[in-house]
């Protein structure tokens, strides 16, 4: 196993941990953070797989995608935080209302 694969597997781990937090926590800030952790995992997988052939120069295409992806993720996070603040202002709670049938 070379270091590129190790980074890629770490990315898979980060993605799964983030998904776990996204499902388990109701607080919207935690959900937003969880999505960011998932995104970091995806970026790590992409960058690591771009350089997984030892000796060859890294593939620039996934690197270019990750560079723009990071900036887009930051702006999407900002939009999500603004939406969260609106939800809190409207309902008083920073979480989505729960669906209860009974």
């Amino acid at each position, binding site marked *: 196993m070379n270091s590129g*694969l190790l980074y*890629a*597997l770490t990315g*898979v*781990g980060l*993605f*799964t941990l983030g*998904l*776990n937090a996204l*499902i*388990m926590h109701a607080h919207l800030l935690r959900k937003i953070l969880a999505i960011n952790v998932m995104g970091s995992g995806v970026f790590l*997988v992409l960058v690591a*797989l771009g350089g*997984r*052939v030892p000796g*060859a*120069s*890294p*593939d*620039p*295409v996934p*690197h*270019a*995608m990750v*560079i*723009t992806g*990071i*900036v*887009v993720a*930051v*702006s*999407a996070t*900002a*939009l999500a*935080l*603004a*939406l969260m*603040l*609106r939800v809190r202002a409207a309902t008083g709670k920073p979480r989505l209302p729960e669906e209860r049938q009974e």
Partner: protein
Amino acid sequence: MSVADRSRLPLVSRGVRLLLLALAGGLSYAVLSLPDQRVELSDQVSANMAASGVHNPVTAVLLNFRGYDTLLEMGVLLVALLGVWSLGTAVAHRRGGPGPVLSFLVEGLVPMMILMAGYLLWVGAAAPGGAFQAGSVLAAAGILLLLSSKRLPVRLVGRPLRLVLVLGLLAFVVVGVTLLSVNGIFLQYPPGLAGGLILFIEAAATLSIGVTLAALFLGGRPDSDT
């Protein structure tokens, strides 16, 4: 939460954890079993580097070979900012200026960061760097200024601010449409002009990215706007 719910919850969360573990195992298997030979993309990139106008393959992919993607990503940034602005005006900042440490730092750091952004933009043609990195540094400088309660003068908030925000997308589209009318292909740079055009687009994009990210940090429309 009722008593029945409380006793059921650990079981559900255990099930979710098991599913997630299975997902992680599947993804790891997918990563490990990827074939060694890659799609020929990186070979194509290195074969066409001479025509790209820059020496850094990542910049060549971003601004030349996949210019479309980057154009649309500038659009995404703008849409995110529109979303934030449509949700309300900026949160009123706290009164009282910054402490002595912060203002000292801001005075020292912000000029250095602007210089750094210019350097990153220029060096992106040949080494790691480029519009997105330079724009991020510029945005950090802007956020430092916002944190120390500095705001744009009111006369700059309206049209001048909006012009800078759309500058990157505008430069991209103008270059693309001009080339479309000259040689019939959108964003197909002539090899002799490619370097200059890329630098032009990147300079505009750097400004837009920096200002957009700093404006996103504000969390709403600038207040003098309404």
